[in-house]
């Protein structure tokens, strides 16, 4: 048995295909890398895995018989963290799940189970934050537009929430870090890529792109935010713990006016 190094396209299905191959060929000592992250490709003994949704589905369905629905989603959440070596951690988790006769969901004293649970919780927290911190601005062509730079790749997770909440308005949520976004056209949500012109500053509301009343509502909101604060209870530490500074630049209420 030799050590193997699997390279995949970075998608969840791609990862599950790798897991399939690990079982199919009884691979041991496996490393799994995204193709974008691969170094020294020429020198390592590595194999490129082509994503196969059939194989991926078989792993996923198998996993769901071993775990509760919530725990299988934990695997997906943790995957979206994009953390270094997340693939190997998840592979260990999946192996443990398949091997064990009893469901392992709640075995928090096992370090792998605990770790996956912790990472998925971090991703869940980021999802929740984005659901809260997205700030739509109305563009001249009547689309509500927001940009975000989440720590983890949470767009796939927040789609449903925004679709059911904003069913009667067109909207775009764009991940500037990962260069893709979601567009809802009143019927369905699509994945889009945008080319921003060079003078586009995502932290500003330029009159060229956004509707006139947009400024007015931002101003109203900023003033509301100020008026609703109780000065004698000010507690900046608590404030920053809830709204970490890295998110401020996209929050209308945090802009200098």
């Amino acid at each position, binding site marked *: 048995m030799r050590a193997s190094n699997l390279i995949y396209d970075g998608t969840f299905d791609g990862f599950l295909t790798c897991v399939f191959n690990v079982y199919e060929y009884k691979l041991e000592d496996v490393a799994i890398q995204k193709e974008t992250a691969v170094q020294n490709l020429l020198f390592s003994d590595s194999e490129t895995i082509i994503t196969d949704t059939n194989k991926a589905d078989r792993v996923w369905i198998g996993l769901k018989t071993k775990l509760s629905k919530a725990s299988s989603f934990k695997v997906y959440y943790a995957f979206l963290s994009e953390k270094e070596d997340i693939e190997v951690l998840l592979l260990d988790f999946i192996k443990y799940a398949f091997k064990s006769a009893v469901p392992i969901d*709640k*075995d928090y004293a096992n370090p792998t189970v605990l770790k996956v649970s912790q990472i998925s919780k971090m991703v869940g927290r980021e999802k929740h934050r984005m659901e809260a911190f997205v700030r739509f601005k109305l563009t001249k062509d009547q689309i509500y537009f927001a940009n975000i730079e989440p720590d983890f790749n949470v767009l796939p997770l927040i789609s449903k929430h925004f679709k059911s*909440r904003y*069913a009667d308005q067109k909207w775009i949520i764009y991940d500037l870090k990962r260069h893709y976004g979601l567009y809802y056209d009143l019927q369905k949500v699509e994945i889009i890529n945008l080319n921003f012109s060079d003078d586009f500053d995502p932290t500003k509301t330029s009159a060229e792109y956004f509707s006139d009343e947009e400024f007015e509502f931002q101003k109203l909101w900023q003033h509301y935010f100020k008026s609703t604060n*109780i000065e004698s*209870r000010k507690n*900046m530490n608590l404030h920053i713990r809830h709204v970490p500074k890295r998110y401020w630049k996209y929050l209308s209420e945090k802009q200098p006016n």
Partner: protein
Amino acid sequence: MSFERTQEKLKILADAAKYDVSCSSSGSNRKNTNKGLGDATGMGICHSYTEDGRCVSLLKILLTNHCIFDCAYCVTRKSNDIKRAAFKVQEVVDLTMNFYRRNYIEGLFLSSGIFKSADYTMERLVGVAKKLRLEENFNGYIHLKSIPGASDELMREAGLYADRLSVNIEIPTKSGLKLLAPDKNHDDFIKPMVKVKNEIIQYKAEKKIIRSTPKYAPAGQSTQMIIGASGENDFQIMQTSNHFYKNYNLKRVYYSGYVPISYDSRLPQIGTEVPMLRENRLYQTDWLMRFYGFDVNEILNANHQHLDLDIDPKLSWALRNLHCFPVDVNKADKRMLARIPGLGMKSVSKIIYARRYRKLNWEHLKKIGVALNRARYFMICDSNDFERRDLTASQIKNFILQNSTSKYTKTLSNQLNLFG
């Protein structure tokens, strides 16, 4: 709409509404069924936080701060010399819709000073909710204040459009209310609560028969008490609170430390510190009652009328009841686990799950997230290393206090000085 004029009103009417703390928007489930705007299912979202650390999830405003009454503890009182303003119904609707569409808020929290009469005021509050639901197809969250003294008919209508209704009892005792709000009648507060409770029960019963019965105030009702304005002790406050939970099916009682806003001699003077730590201890007690299986009398009773400020109420209870400890975490039932200081309900359920796989030792417990610096004096686990000294309550308390820094340390030393 004229943005400048609205701006001015918003400033005045948000400022006047901010002392009301019941900002929670959770507990409802109004689904987006008509492809309209919004839903209020599941957890409420905090879209932002004020600099005092409170969650901003609702547009919280007064419809007007004109008021015919003169309650001493209230900024809106008739005799107070402040700027007055009033929103039109449509203005509130527009603000709500536009803030909601931009994902600033979960919905609207609308309260009001009493202008002309209770019914006249309540009618306008209901008007806003009705317009949002029927004309704008708005499915977000709406919390309306019930105006004490409003008619049954209006209360019934309010419940059809609002997710939550509340009446602020404000002052925990009848005598306090008489002193500080002479225009108000204690029964006027209770009446709308009874009404809403009866409506909820009636609607629930009907719902079993007809599936399409409209939801009546699906998130239930809540109330707020001001703490530290009229001299009540913790025992009286929690007795009142318990009474409301038990008799009126309230979802939440909120405790709001009094922020001094007047030189009225009946009240704490301007500059007096807001009793934030005490407020926090009351909330902890409230949680112990609602989620940890404590009876209010175990925590506060005739012999123990004040909550300790330096330690939390669960630890305080445990120190008074050392005969119940140590608890064996590998054997104890949920009820006893929940009583160990330093163990939250989340850790309790993790322990119950994890101990099915193996006996838990200190290392496991630490990983699960148990605050061992407090918990270790009260429990044993799968280890020979446990507290063998026969410590007294005050020794344990000292050890724990030495090893912990509270976020309230500064406030604590200030507030303790009051008693020193």
